[in-house]
């Protein structure tokens, strides 16, 4: 946790939840884990108000808490979950992502879960049923018919069944995940509690101190911690009716059974579970979007669309766990077949004309390759290779069965061609120096593909870093950084030789790079006296440290942007409060003067620009921190 990150988090909370929350968060970030009374003493706000604020923050998962039960009295400690605070920035993008994939109704479900923090499914569905009109042509008690769109404008979700259908869909793809008690505690505390329990079980005696037992305990603790997180990995966790480990009181509260099974879906939600938005999953999606953009800039639009489709298939299996190292997901091993992509790819993408047919030689070579592969595949099929069964068996069935109807066989032919074209695009991706996809040999007929996201993100990071160095310090500095990264530790002389520059010329660059934290120096004295003149100075590049330095800059930049927005807002405060009046809202054209209208538009534009910049920096932060 860096100072700049703390500042950013405080500003973000103030921007979203107001001043009170931000003061409590600031105190927690500054002093770390504290008890209620320490917080009260530090923020100088009445106890009752602090408590209320803590409820808000815990509800939104911005603050974690843990009550130590052993000892005479229980002491509850509060801790700020600053990564979650940072996630406040992503709200817009998350809602939009769901909107694109599942439609606006599901997006409104996500948006409401974001607003609520976590919520019990049954409560959520009940609330939805109340706040939206029941049926499009429902009749009010007084006999007037109203329509759903008239009632709520943009949330035409009509029945509980519909909402639960959306929730099930979102849960199956892990956009919503169940919350358990241990999610509300800092993971360190959870681990400690487990360790204590395991130690007590293992050996109640002094034997526990022996190295062997210690190791065994460590293993067991790790296992149990994993088990906790694996619960969520289970695809249909929380979807079937299952008894949870909740205590009696909680169950009494949740006896409310609302979960209605939907006809189309065999899964029903357990009404008593509590859901929240899975931020890690969204991070994985944002990462994939970035990869697609990169592929587009390197290869082309159509190929990137194919790539997006491939990644979308991989995403389905991603739950996303956030660790200190970054995002961990199971996407690496998953293989997607060309056939799967072909089934879901939009038909209007021009796959054929997007690859320019090059000079005859290479083109011919390629064609024979693909054709050759095709023929051999057909041959293999007769040998009865079970893995090859997928497509050709299907298509041939069509061919044979519908031999008379010409149309269907031509459709099959079309399908075949489409798959070949997709395959070409995927080959392009695989042959790129960055190796966007990895071909999995053997198993599937048109090929199976996997993506090594970790390696790709590493490459992405390096590329971004070099771009930043180039932008800030110029070409020579970039060259130096690249050389040092390549060669390891180097002194100035060796560096100058390798860079084909004079020592004098590179010195200033090295100085600046060192000052800004991109390069680091190790001193190796030749003699015991450590004279500067008799010392080697080796420059080296430490990825972790330069990452930290850069993140620090990013956080600072983001805080400044938000502060700038605040300042701009205060300049226009008169106008904004007027525009915010309940009678003016919606009637701006009539009630505001021309000058005010232009000013308002100007303010909105400038805020948009600043927020746009914020999101751009956010992209880099995610790249260096999360992916």
């Amino acid at each position, binding site marked *: 946790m860096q100072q700049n990150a703390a500042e950013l988090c405080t500003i973000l909370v103030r921007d979203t939840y107001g001043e009170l929350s931000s003061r409590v968060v600031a105190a927690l970030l500054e002093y770390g884990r504290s008890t209620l009374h320490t917080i009260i003493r530090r923020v100088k706000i009445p106890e009752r108000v602090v408590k209320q604020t803590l409820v808000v923050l815990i509800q939104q998962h911005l603050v974690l808490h843990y009550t130590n039960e052993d000892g005479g009295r229980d002491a*509850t400690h509060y801790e700020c979950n600053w990564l979650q605070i940072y996630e406040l920035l992503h709200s817009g993008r998350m809602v939009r992502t769901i909107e694109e994939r599942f439609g606006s109704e599901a997006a409104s479900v996500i948006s409401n879960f974001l607003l609520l923090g976590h919520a019990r499914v049954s409560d959520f569905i009940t609330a939805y049923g109340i706040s939206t009109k029941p049926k499009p042509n429902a009749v009010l008690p007084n006999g007037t018919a109203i329509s759903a769109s008239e009632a709520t404008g943009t949330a035409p979700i009509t029945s509980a069944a519909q909402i639960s259908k959306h929730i099930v869909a979102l849960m199956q793809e892990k956009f919503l995940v169940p*919350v358990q008690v241990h999610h509300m505690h800092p993971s360190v505390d959870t681990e400690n509690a487990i360790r204590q329990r395991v130690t007590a079980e293992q050996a109640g005696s002094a034997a526990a101190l022996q190295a062997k037992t210690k190791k065994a305990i460590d293993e067991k603790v790790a296992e149990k911690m994993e088990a906790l997180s694996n619960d969520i990995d289970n695809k249909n966790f929380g979807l079937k009716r299952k008894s949870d480990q909740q205590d009696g009181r909680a169950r009494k509260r949740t006896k409310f059974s609302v979960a209605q099974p939907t006809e189309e879906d065999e899964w029903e939600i357990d009404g008593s579970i509590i859901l929240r938005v899975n931020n890690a999953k969204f991070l994985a999606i944002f990462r994939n979007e970035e990869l697609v953009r990169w592929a587009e800039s390197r290869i082309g639009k159509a190929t990137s669309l194919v790539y997006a489709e491939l990644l979308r298939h991989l995403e389905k299996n991603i739950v996303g766990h956030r660790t200190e190292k970054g995002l961990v997901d199971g996407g690496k091993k998953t293989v997607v077949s060309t056939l799967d992509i072909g089934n879901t790819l939009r038909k209007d993408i021009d796959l054929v004309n997007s690859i320019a047919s090059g000079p005859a030689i290479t083109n011919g070579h390629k064609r024979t390759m693909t054709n050759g592969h095709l023929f051999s595949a057909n041959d293999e099929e007769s040998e009865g290779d079970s893995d090859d069964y997928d497509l050709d068996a299907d298509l041939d069935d069509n061919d044979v069965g519908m031999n008379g109807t010409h149309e269907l066989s031509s459709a099959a032919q079309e399908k075949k061609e489409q798959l070949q074209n997709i395959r070409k695009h995927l080959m392009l991706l695989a042959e790129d120096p960055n190796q966007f996809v990895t071909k999995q040999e053997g198993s599937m007929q048109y090929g199976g593909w996997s993506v090594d996201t970790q390696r790709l993100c590493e490459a992405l990071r390096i590329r971004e870093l070099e771009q930043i160095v180039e932008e800030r310090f110029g070409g020579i500095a970039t060259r130096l950084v690249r050389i040092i990264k390549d060669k390891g530790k180097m002194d100035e002389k060796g560096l100058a030789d390798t860079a084909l520059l004079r020592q004098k010329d590179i010195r200033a660059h090295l100085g600046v790079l060192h000052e800004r934290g991109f390069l680091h120096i190790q001193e190796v004295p030749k003699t015991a006296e450590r004279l500067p003149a008799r010392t080697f100075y080796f420059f080296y590049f430490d990825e972790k440290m330069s990452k930290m330095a850069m993140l620090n800059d990013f956080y600072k930049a983001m805080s400044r942007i938000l502060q700038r927005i605040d300042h701009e807002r205060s300049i226009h405060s008169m106008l904004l409060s007027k525009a915010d009046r309940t009678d003016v*809202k919606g009637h701006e054209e009539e009630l505001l003067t021309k000058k005010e209208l232009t000013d308002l538009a100007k303010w909105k534009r400038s805020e948009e620009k600043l927020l746009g910049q914020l999101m751009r920096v956010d992209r880099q932060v995610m790249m260096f921190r999360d992916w």
Partner: protein
Amino acid sequence: MAFRGGRGGFRGGRGGGSNGGPMMPREFDVKPDFGPTEQFPDYTIPFQDPLSSTERIHIARFRDHREKVHSGPLYTVLGKRKGLEDPFEDVVTYSAKKYHRQKRKVPKLDSRPYVFEFFPVELWETMDSSYAATGDRSVVISGKKDPKKRLLISSLNTELPNGGHHDDDKSDGSDEEDEEKEREKKSVLAKLMSHKDEEDDGLGDEDEDDEDKEDEGEEEDDYQDDEDGDYNAEQYFDDGDGDVDYGDDDGGGGAWFD
């Protein structure tokens, strides 16, 4: 103590370096420039690339979300401290009182159900007054839900930004009209969307009154004296709504705890 001669020492060190003394045989080819720097050195101002439409949609959603949180029960604005109010701008006027969005000084917590086991025990009392030592235990014991407590659900604004500025006000206009109808059904949605005071009536009035009193006690009461006197400037503007307790509070922010 040790740094008393710091500046001089610095100079000395520098001199030694350039003279090539025994300690610093290495010659410096970097000549420091001690002259005054230019006041406004040349600087290429970076320009932002125009925002793409995707980015603009993200921003629109972000703003929309933030706006919803702001109009929700959790957003708080601390009023200005006593004596720091602007005597011209911060005077409560009739229109300000009637049309401006009411600001909350403390989050409003008692209108929604909570998952109690996710919260530390010491906060339960704050979340639900029935957990208080003096509170009504019947709710806790029977485990029944308070039907008045509901989650707030708001609709999503799916408008796409267009032109120079996107006006996300069109939908709000229709909401305004809906209010009348919604209010009859005591819809939670309407309560969220509107910031008027009439909406209070749905939610446990007794509790609110209690809370109000407590709140008033806690904040410094600027207008104690005025209240005792026979002239109350605040009352002058009272439109008779009565529901909002402005009169005795610190005026500027307007305490609104519903």
